[in-house]
């Protein structure tokens, strides 16, 4: 472990403190403005006409009746798109509006703009689409059959990866035990509080401003430019307050904005397009359903000798983000363990269903459910405690990951396991719960994970961040950066980093929301990179300004810049504390001396690499680690599970704000609990049966367990004040920990998610126990 040396620089006043969220008050009192709160003169309301077939040829779209309706200003189809009829994501396969064929229920066919929402809704009904229904392909297993209709490329495979290390066959020969199982996981819907919404406002000189609920302003800027043909220099994307994203506002706003911008372009009026909840559930991205075949070999003493994984994702109709999602899942498929022999094959397969995309964890919760179930099965088989088994195989500094990457620093994994075991009283409870009889059984289960922070080798070209910082003559500071606040506390953490870096009071820093016309493209707000990447860029800008100010202050205080301390709005000579000046006095002087008080900051992600043939390389520059221990009570007569407690220990490097970090972990646990036990999007033949919040259930506060959060802060030398990332690791281990606890409680295992009461009930009944 790195030794704690408190030097001048390391004494922290703001970073590491539970500062209150800068956006909290306005949101709580209802003053914060979300996209649906905004209005513009002459604004029209947009609506989208959507496919009612999972797969069909489009013969004719007749818009004449809709156009004739009073109040309707425009009804547009593919041929009315001024730019390219294509949403630019990773590969170009998805049209903005379907022209000849629809590939999933909910795919967009036509757009309406009208003077009221009601009229726009009426107009949708008047658009007549003549379809020729085709046989849909709705399961990835079917899609892989030779006989399957080809709905994507030559073989329905969107993308595939492989990872090879050592020789698995000899690894399995060395093994004393081999565990082989198949796992399945279902969809997960984001259920962000605020559905998708965009307003497009045409401006002077053919420009366009987009206001929206979104995670990735620069993606939207590119998409709007694509579909309208307006140069990127004239497309400005402003993120407004956003009611949650979880990955669901990574790529989707690109096409929501695409629709809106095309309508605004054609009508030359501001257009607002807000999704209904049902429309949102039907037509926007979700977590990919998965099939995972997993084979683990180990010695009687617990060391892993071989791991073989086949990982299949149900991609839906278009590639969207399946490519990086599958890649991340592949790289993380073995978990945070040492293993010399590894073979992973992964596929994302097209089906005639809504395209799946980004969701917190990004292709990892599925494989984690598999590898953590495998670890428990293995522990049982060799008669070892699940904690001991994990400690035996867990990665440490100097170890190699599945991709052959040697971990050189910031590996707090083992400490997360040990501390979680201690805080949860693992050993006592594991013993006591095993002895329980009766209708209510209890169990305790563990899951442990690693997570490559930021975009990694696959997203290298986007992995950079910019910032712009201005100091004003009154000593106040404004920070611009291009990652977004989506409820996670990003602006607060950035304000803390800026305040610490410049030595000004936290209250004197104001962080603006993202605006593509101000800050260069900094990549997307995804991959748990919202603190590390812009944080480093902000530090860079602050350093530049501070250096200029230090020169002035040194003269004023009759010393050299190295002796100066900037702290809490004051500047003083370290040898003469108490005799300094106010920061704003220094700023005022610098201002009068015509010193430039603004600076741009820049940060490029450290080195990453990946060999597509072998999967070997350094896919991520640093990893976060986490262990969750869940305790549950299961009613064996009904199958109902109550999660009693989750103990969560995270190594995300230095924690900039313990309050917002805990908030992330608590939210992640609830979302993971939903994924584990109740969130079930039911689909039949391409139709989603429960596109509503009555029957797609997410946990309520009444389902929330007691949560205990603790941080292991293994600092990362290239992160801001040593920080890594926490947004996704917070959900990743939860479902697997809960399922492991459930099987400890009932003595049988459920191999698919979600483990609903009914599924658990039949599993128990099928096992012949408790009769």
């Amino acid at each position, binding site marked *: 472990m790195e030794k704690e040396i408190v030097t001048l620089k390391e004494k922290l006043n703001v970073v590491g403190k539970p500062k209150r969220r800068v956006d909290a008050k306005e949101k709580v009192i209802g003053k914060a403005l979300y996209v649906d709160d905004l209005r513009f003169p002459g604004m029209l309301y947009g609506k989208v006409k959507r496919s009612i077939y999972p797969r069909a040829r489009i013969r004719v779209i007749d818009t004449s009746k809709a156009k004739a309706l009073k109040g309707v200003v425009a009804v547009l189809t593919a041929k009315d798109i001024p730019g390219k009829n294509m949403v630019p994501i990773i590969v170009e396969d998805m049209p903005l509006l379907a022209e000849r064929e629809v590939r999933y229920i909910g795919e967009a066919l036509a757009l309406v703009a009208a003077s*009221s*929402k*009601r*009229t*726009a*809704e009426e107009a949708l009904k008047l658009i007549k689409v003549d379809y020729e229904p085709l046989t849909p392909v709705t399961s990835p297993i079917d899609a892989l059959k030779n006989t399957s209709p080809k709905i994507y490329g030559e073989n329905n495979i969107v993308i595939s990866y492989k990872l090879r290390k050592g020789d698995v066959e000899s690894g399995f020969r060395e093994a004393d035990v081999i565990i082989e199982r198949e796992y399945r996981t279902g969809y997960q819907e984001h259920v962000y509080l605020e559905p998708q919404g965009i307003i497009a406002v045409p401006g002077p000189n053919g420009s366009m401003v987009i206001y929206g609920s979104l995670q990735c302003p620069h993606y939207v800027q590119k998409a709007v430019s694509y579909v309208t043909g307006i140069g990127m220099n004239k497309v400005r994307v402003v993120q407004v307050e956003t009611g949650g994203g979880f990955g669901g506002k990574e790529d989707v706003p690109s096409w929501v904005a695409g629709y809106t911008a095309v309508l605004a372009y054609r009508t030359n009026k501001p257009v607002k397009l807000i999704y209904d909840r049902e429309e949102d559930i039907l037509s926007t991205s979700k977590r990919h359903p998965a099939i995972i075949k997993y084979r683990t070999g180990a010695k009687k003493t617990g060391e892993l000798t071989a791991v073989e994984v086949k990982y299949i994702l149900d991609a839906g109709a278009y590639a969207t983000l399946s490519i990086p999602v599958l890649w991340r899942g592949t790289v993380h498929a073995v978990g945070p363990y040492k293993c010399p022999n590894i073979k992973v094959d992964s596929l994302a397969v097209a089906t005639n269903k809504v395209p799946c995309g980004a969701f917190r964890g990004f292709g990892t919760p599925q494989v984690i459910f598999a590898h953590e179930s495998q670890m428990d099965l293995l522990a049982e088989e060799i008669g070892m405690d699940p904690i001991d088994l994990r400690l035996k195989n867990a990665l440490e500094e100097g170890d190699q990951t599945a991709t052959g990457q040697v971990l050189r620093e910031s590996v707090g994994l083992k400490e997360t396991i040990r501390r979680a075991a201690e805080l949860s009283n693992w050993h006592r409870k594991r013993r006591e719960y095993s002895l329980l009889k009766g209708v209510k059984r209890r169990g305790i289960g563990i899951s442990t994970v690693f997570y490559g922070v930021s975009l990694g080798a696959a997203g290298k070209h986007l992995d950079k961040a910019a910032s712009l910082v201005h100091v004003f003559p009154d000593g106040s500071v404004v920070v611009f950066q291009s990652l977004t606040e989506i409820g996670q506390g990003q602006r607060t953490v950035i304000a803390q980093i800026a305040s610490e870096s410049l030595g000004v009071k936290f209250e004197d820093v104001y962080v603006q929301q993202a605006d593509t016309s101000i800050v260069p493209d900094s990549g997307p707000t995804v991959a748990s990179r919202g603190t590390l990447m812009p944080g480093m860029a902000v530090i860079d800008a602050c350093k530049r300004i501070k250096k200029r100010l230090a020169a002035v202050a040194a003269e004023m205080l009759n010393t050299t810049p190295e002796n100066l301390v900037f702290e809490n709005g004051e500047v003083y000579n370290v040898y003469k504390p108490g005799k300094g000046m106010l920061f704003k006095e220094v700023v005022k002087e610098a201002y009068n001396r015509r010193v430039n008080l603004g600076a741009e900051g820049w940060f490029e992600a450290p080195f990453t690499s990946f060999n597509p043939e072998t999967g070997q390389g350094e896919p991520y520059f640093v990893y976060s680690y986490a262990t969750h221990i869940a305790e549950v009570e299961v009613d064996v*007569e*009904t199958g*109902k599970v*109550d999660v009693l407690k989750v103990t969560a220990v995270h190594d995300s490097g230095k924690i900039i704000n313990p309050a917002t970090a805990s908030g992330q972990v608590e939210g992640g646990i609830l979302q993971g609990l939903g994924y584990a*036990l*109740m969130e*079930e999007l*039911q689909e039949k033949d391409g139709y989603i*049966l*429960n596109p509503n919040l*009555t*029957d797609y*259930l997410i*946990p*309520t*506060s*009444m*389902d929330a367990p007691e949560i205990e959060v603790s941080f292991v802060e293994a600092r990362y030398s290239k992160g801001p004040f040593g920080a890594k990332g926490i947004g996704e690791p917070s959900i990743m281990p939860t479902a697997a920990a809960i399922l492991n606890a459930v099987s400890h409680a009932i003595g049988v295992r459920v191999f698919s998610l979600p483990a*609903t*009461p*009914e599924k658990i*009930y*039949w599993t128990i*009944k099928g096992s012949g126990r408790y009769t």
Partner: protein
Amino acid sequence: MSLFFQKSESLKEQGFIDFFIILSISEVIDQGSVLDLQAFIHPFSLDDVLEFLERGASISNVMAGGTDLFLQVKQGLVKPKYLVSLAGLKELKKIDLEVGFIKIGSVVAFQEIIDSEDLKYKAYILQGASRKMGFPQLHHVATIGGNLGNASPAADSAPPLIVLRAKIRVVSKNGERVIPVESFFLGIKKTVLKANEIIKEVVIPLPGENFTGGFVKLGKRNAHVLSTISVAVGIQFSDGIVKDIRIGMGFVAPIPLRTLKAENVLRGKKPAEGLVIKCAKVAASETAPISDQRASTGYRWEMVFVLTRMNDFKDHFQGG
């Protein structure tokens, strides 16, 4: 909301305007959610409500808390021209304890049922079921009359009311009639109510000394959930013998169901374990649960069995 008379010309022509304050939700109409709504009518006396319904029943819907109705309006399943609010009827917002029975006004919200001292002793099964309804905010808005009037097979107040031998008093301009709860429902969203009638109150006879019972609701989460199934059981004991028994169930049939045959298994008997299991089996055979997004028929059948057996018989066994 603003006072709004313009769209209600037709009402004026019909001579209603003198009775009522007429409000409009013009903003909502603008947004297109409520397509055909012309007026929201908010009377302050039962007579006014009944008068209005007498004349305009076919184009009106009564609304209490609106927690069911508004969703149906939004989904276009119900297209009221006039919404007649019952929220102004103080006379129907009371719980009265009288000799031999308790009356719960139809516009009483579930929070008042939960908080009522009288119900605590006399109808705790209803209180228990009310607590499990929805979530705390809902309890302050949703009414018992709305829960029954909505006639969902999953209405959580119905099974306990069946068990408590409750009757529903309905009223129209032409008078009142009284209907046992189990005869009130005809099918999904269908009741015996005529278009000009509303529920006035629920009348619960006070149970005797040795009455015991319980309510179990099964759902996929702990709040804010429609029942997968629910079961209420109430037993009147006399010297350890089941003098009378009632079993009511939610979401096992198109209507909240009373399982008479299962009751008969135990009526007049000592509740030995074997008999309770038989009762539960018979109960399952009387139900016809559906398969839907919430659960399969098979699971529901098993749960009818489990929950009927689990229900408060247990307390009795434990007590000897």
